[in-house]
C-alpha cells in the first residue's frame, strides 16, 4: 500500500477538494471544509473498493491525520 496513492484516493473519494491539496499530515476532520458523515462513508467505501478491506468506523473517527487512516487500513489488510 502506497501512502501517496492512498492520499490521492482519499482526495478523489471525498470530492470537493483540489487534487494535490491534501497530504499525509492533513488533519481531515478540521482541515477539510464541510467534512461530514458522508465523507466518512466515502473513505470507508474507498478503502473497501481500492484495498478490499474494511476499517471500523469508530477507529476512523478517532484518526487525526490521513496517514493515521492509511496505517489503520494497512493493519486491517494484514
Amino acid at each position, binding site marked *: 500500500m502506497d501512502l501517496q496513492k492512498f492520499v490521492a484516493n482519499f482526495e478523489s473519494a471525498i470530492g470537493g477538494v483540489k487534487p494535490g491539496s491534501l497530504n499525509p499530515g492533513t488533519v481531515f476532520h478540521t482541515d477539510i471544509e*464541510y467534512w*461530514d*458523515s*458522508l465523507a*466518512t*462513508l466515502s473513505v*470507508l*467505501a474507498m478503502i*473497501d*473498493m481500492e484495498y478490499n478491506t*474494511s476499517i*471500523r*468506523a*469508530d477507529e*476512523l*473517527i478517532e484518526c487525526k491525520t490521513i496517514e493515521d487512516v492509511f496505517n489503520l487500513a494497512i493493519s486491517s489488510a494484514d
Partner: protein
Amino acid sequence: MAEIKGISYYLPKKVITNVQLSELFPEWSVQKIADKVGIKNRYIAEDEQCASDLAFEAANKLFDDLKIKPESIDFLLLCTQSPDYFLPTTACLLQNRLGIPTTAGALDFNLGCSGFIYGLSLANSLIKAGEAKNVLLITAETYSKFIDARDKGNRTIFGDAAAACLVTKSDRDQISSFVYGTDGTGGQNLIVKYGGMRNRNAVEADEDCLDEESGLLHRKGTLEMKGAEIFNFTIKVVPSTVSKILDKAGLTIDDISLFVFHQANRYILEHLRKKMGIPEEKFYYFMEDCGNTVSSTIPIALHHALIEKKLNQGDKILLLGFGVGYSWGGCLLTI
C-alpha cells in the same frame, strides 16, 4: 405454492422537500447530501397519524387496485417498529378497521429494513403449509416520530409510508431461495433506546446527548444511527448474501433480470452495485420521491419496477433487505 398478486402503497400528504430542509438548516449542505443519497422528497405522517392509519390506506388501495374484498383475506401480517400501542397488537385493530373476517389470523412482527423479506417468507410458508390462502402483508412505519427535529442526517434520509402486498395460493412457485441473516452485535448502531421496558425514565429520555459521528445533539429517546458502522455492515453481508441466494438457486448474476434492494440510500447502493459488478440497467432505484421508508422500500420499488421494466414471464428478480438488528434476508421472485 404462492405468488404475489399485487402491491399498493400509501405516502402521507405532508412532504418535506430539500428546499425546506435547506431553509431549516442553512449550514447543512442538504442539496449536496441529497444529490449523493438520491432523495428529493420525503413524506411525513401528521402528529395524529400512526402506522395503522398508513397501513389502512395502503390496504384499501390494494383492495381497490386488485378489485378484491377484505372478506377474502385469511391472514394479516403487519411489519412495524412504530406500532400504535404496546398492546393491543396493531394487526388486530387493522383486522377490524379493514373488515377482514374474524376467522383470519393476524399478527405484528417487529423488523425494519429486512421486514418485507421476512414477511414474504412467513406468507409463503403459511400458504405452502396450507394454513392460509390469501395473506395480506403490510409494512408500515412512522420513523419520523422517532427522529429528533435537529437530526439533519436522518431527517434527510427517512420518510414515512405503508405498503400492502397480497400473497396468494397459486399453481406456481413464484417466491423462492430465501436466505436469512441476523447479528445482534449491531443492535446498538441503529436504535431507539427509550420508550420500551429497558429504559423507562421519560425525563432522562428528554435530555440531550451528543452523537459522536455527526457531532450533533439529540434527545436520548430519539433514533440513533451510526451510519458508518451500518455501511460497514452492508458491505460485509450484502455481497455474500446475494451469492448465497444465487448458489441456492443454481444461478449467476447474469441470470437475474433485476435486483431490487432495500432503498437505504443511493450512495450505499451504488457502492454495493459496483462492488458486486451488477450492471446499472439491472439495478433498480426508487427513493428520489419518498426516501428510505424502512420496510416499505422494497415493495414500493417492486411496485414501480413491475410497471416500468418490461419483464417477461420467467424473468427473475432478486430481492434483498438489510438493516436494523442487524437483520438481513433475500429471495428470488419469478415473474
